[in-house]
């Protein structure tokens, strides 16, 4: 099944000029200033076509810093749900990857992946701008591959996954059968 012209145009736009939104989920500020640093003259993330946006409705990539706190948990889900498809999440910093030094604190839920699905992890305390750029570029490379093959559609009943297939109709997983293919 071929994909439509508009779909291909959106894919190309996402790949060539991903707009990012930055959300602090409970970070110590260290990673936040490094994310902003990556946008300023020395590192200049804008040369990859990346532009920081103020609203989640205009963004393709959600750059998250910090361990998720109880207070920001619902807001993070809200922001993620407001973003248009296809959407990607980059967890910047050790706290965002796993909870880091704050793991186990009473106000902390855990890393970003405890709340929303994460596409790329950038560890470091604080993550250096070079690492953030590297993470985003790697995400774009993976994105290109995914766009070529198309996303996988998952059908579920309750919590259990019943069937997973690609857009072209190729079945990747079916509940009662043996694993068909990777």
């Amino acid at each position, binding site marked *: 099944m071929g994909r439509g012209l508009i779909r291909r145009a959106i894919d190309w736009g996402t790949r060539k000029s991903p707009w990012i939104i930055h959300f602090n989920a409970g970070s110590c*500020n260290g990673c936040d200033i490094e994310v902003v*640093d990556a946008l300023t003259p020395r590192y200049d993330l804008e040369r990859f076509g990346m532009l920081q946006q103020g609203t989640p409705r205009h963004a393709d990539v959600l750059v998250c810093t910090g361990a998720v706190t109880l207070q*920001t948990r619902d807001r993070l889900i809200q922001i993620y749900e407001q973003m248009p498809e296809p959407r990607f999440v980059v967890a910047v910093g050790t706290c965002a990857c796993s909870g880091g030094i704050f793991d*186990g604190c009473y106000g902390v839920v855990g890393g970003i992946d405890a709340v929303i699905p994460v596409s790329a992890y950038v560890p470091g305390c*604080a993550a250096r701008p070079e690492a953030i750029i590297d993470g985003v570029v790697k995400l774009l490379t993976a994105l290109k591959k995914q766009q070529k093959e198309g996303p996988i559609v998952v059908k579920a009943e309750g919590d259990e996954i019943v069937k997973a297939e690609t857009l072209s109709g190729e079945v990747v997983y079916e509940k009662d059968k043996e694993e068909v293919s990777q």
Partner: protein
Amino acid sequence: MAEKITIPIGPQHPSLKEPACFTITMEGEKVVNAVVGLGYNHRGLEKACESRTYIQDLYIIERVCGICSHAHSTAFCQSLEYLAGVEIPQRAAFIRTLVAELERLHSHLLWLGVGAHEIGFDTLFMYTWRDREKVLDLLATLCGNRVNYGINTPGGCRRDLNDEEIAMIRKAMNELEEQVKYYTELALNDTILAARLSGIGKLSHDDALRLGAVGPVSRASGVPDDVRAIDPYAAYGIVPFKVITDDHCDVFGRAVVRVLEMQESIKMIRFCLDNLPSGEIAAKFPRRIPAGEVFTRVEAPRGEDTHYVRSNGTDKPDRVRVRAATEANWHAVRHMIEGDMLADVPIIIAAIDPCYSCTDRSFVVKDPLTGKDKQMDWGALRQYGIDWYRKERGVDPSRIPLPGKRFY
């Protein structure tokens, strides 16, 4: 009379990078009431400190805030050194001061950029953040990390300076001095900046004292409130510097104070390098600390940062309490927003250099008799303290003059 409208701003909002929710009630374009909603960054690190050893706590305390991490770790180390009765070597005190001033330099450059960004002056934002990279390079060379330096340890410092690094700092300071001079000229003489920043976020001298504003916010209202001068720590008793104050009492004044403070910082860094004593960088520090309690303060780039530590004789603290500068400034912010235009709100909030991760601590006051939550105003709290000391310790603190009367 215009109808009143209530607008929620945040917790995710484009102007500031951290989550906070401001509920602003307006009459037309004028703000009549503002409620500051905090707590989005509350992680519970004071409690976490109680279950870890002092050395582990140091790493948590550094991550209270990524921008003024050195101020926090200095305050915490000072508390421990006081409790253990350890005096740090002179060289360590100078290195602490040096790193603190570099931190102030980077924080003020960061603020100038963020402030410029809030008023739509993105060119200045890019300029200052480019220059800030020079300071971060120095910090990365001296401490090993761009953010969260980790140079402090109880009893001194973890890294020494060598001649190569000193030469590097001197070279960078010469370059930065040129740039800071340019920013000073820009802040003092540029008509656009003056027109945009003058007259908004007014905080009079009396209000600054009444609302307990600290740091550049209070200094811009003419209050010479600087912990480095009134309660010297590390090497601040030796290093000469001028407390910058300004009598504009508005956002413009705050910008002027910060820019002039950068010049002072550069002078102080040079003095530290010229007069760096030789010798050890760290004193031996015990693992267990005798029981006691201590309250210390340091001057973070944003203002007075206070730490309270109570030890119980083991290798873990009994209680750690952090009150960072931004927490003290919120009352002033509410006062400053009211009566101003909605369009001025982002820059007024940004003018205190807010840091929410510093601020979001929580505590509950319980009445020991009824077990219920209890709230006190400032006068009742002072009276409670006086009564407690009279009863428990047999001293009468009511005769001790308030700091306001002594220093200002």
